[in-house]
């Protein structure tokens, strides 16, 4: 049961991500318009197909949870452990765990979603955080049960 809920959550995360890399706010409208032309087709699948054609190489969808992130200068600075969405379902921030040793002394912080760039150049797709290490370490700790303080790339 727990496993099922986790799989479900990852799927939701995947769909949210799709909404975000694609033509995010317009995705629902394009989907709604499509059935007029081909009523039998699944609107979501069609919009995915259209987005893939437009976006070329970045059409492959990938899971986000557990992904390693790097900054412009450093590799392996941390890992995405959660995504934060607003009431409309829009992903606003990623929760990142970093630092410590063998799990002791790690910190969790929330960074604004646009500060993460998903680059598909090269063989290994990488997630780059457009922040410095100093911006990361001084960000306030993320607390699951409190309103999140999101660190922005330009602060």
């Amino acid at each position: 049961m727990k496993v099922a809920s986790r799989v479900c959550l990852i799927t939701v995360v995947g769909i949210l991500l799709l909404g975000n890399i694609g033509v995010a706010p317009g995705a629902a409208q394009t989907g709604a318009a499509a059935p007029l032309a081909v009523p039998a087709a699944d609107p979501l699948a069609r919009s995915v197909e259209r987005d893939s054609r437009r976006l070329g190489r970045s059409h492959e969808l990938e899971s986000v949870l557990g992904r390693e992130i790097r900054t412009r200068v450093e590799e392996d600075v941390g890992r995405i452990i959660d995504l934060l969405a607003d009431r409309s379902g829009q992903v606003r921030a990623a929760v990142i765990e970093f630092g410590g040793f063998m799990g002791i002394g790690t910190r969790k912080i929330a960074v604004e979603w646009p500060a993460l760039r998903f680059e598909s150049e090269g063989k290994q797709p990488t997630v780059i955080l457009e922040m410095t290490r100093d911006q990361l370490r001084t960000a306030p700790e993320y607390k699951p049960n409190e309103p999140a303080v999101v660190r922005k790339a330009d602060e």
Partner: protein
Amino acid sequence: MRDSDEQDAVHQPSRASQRGLDWFTFFVANLQTGFGPFLSVYLTTQKWTQVDIGLILSIGSIAGLASQIPGGWVVDAAVSKRRAAMLAVIAIGISAVLIAVLPIFVMICAAKLLHVGGSSVLGPAIAAVTLGLVGHAAIGERLGRNARYAAAGNGLAAGVMGACGYFVSAQAVFYVTAVLAIPTLLAISRVREEEVYAVRADGGLCASDGAPVGALSIGRFLRKPDLLILTTCIMLFHVANAAMLPLVGSAMTMRSSQWATALVAACIVAPQLIIAMISPTMGRLAETWGRRPVLLLGFGVLPLRGALLAWTHDPYVIVAVQLLDGISGAVLGVLVPLVLSDISRGTGRFNFAQGVVGSATGIGAALSTIAAGYLADRYGMTTAFFGLATAAVVGFLVLLATMPETKPSPA
């Protein structure tokens, strides 16, 4: 029943058994490294959600608390302490395999419970094998030697497994752990079964004439004032101690940008080096000075460490202050089983007593995490360290005021 001649012969364990026990404590420390906070790092790499990780950790800590006393009781009841230790190692090995191969909720939950169960038996079983092997006369020195090998194992494993997790994968750490179960079993198999005298391993020999006595009822044993005082002091110690290292770690991560990981690693490994160096001395001092002064030393260093951590912000000074953790670590590692062996002598409840102290440790550590987290959130890290130092002062004063000397007076 054995006669006294036979018992004397058993007092001189063979070199093979002694070496076997050395390596056993070393490898057990290796075996346990990956199961700590690292498990949640591994589960995030396996795309686990924070909710599920939190649930597993809660299940683990509740089961851990509940299993301590039954674990000790099982070891007292076991005919072969050696075999109890072996089964515990096998359980932990299987747990590591499950974690590495099948990181799905049901399996991780099963693995966690298997590990908790194994550990609750393994801790007392090591002390039981030790007491059964060397007897009360030589146990102080032997516990010092155990602590030395355990610390060497802890320090080395933290370094090796940290590197393994960083350069290979988090999963590899658990494969390595599973493989390490093999040398652990080989080491304990070198300890000769016939040299581990089971009745002595429970503290079941009368202090005056060395004859086996029936086990004291649990109700009466739990009313022993020495046991209650020691348990209270140990709990207070851990209320002060448990959250200090994690707090130091997150302070390092927050304050130092480039060397944070290496500095946190140094804060973990450095105290182990101190423990490896001074544990045998602590064992010897406990036999000459008595238990009380050595315990007071270990408890006295803790408030100092808390206060210094509150005072300094320099990462390198913090690593130096962490060396004090090595002193209290060595004292607690040697003196707790030693004092328990004094208290339980002639009761047949040595391992049960370790379970009692194990529970107190768990409760103290849980309170420590809650209190330090609250203080750090509300008032900042300095206040959190001062809060922990205050708990350490209380622990020291309670020990000073109430703990009697338990070293048997020479006949």
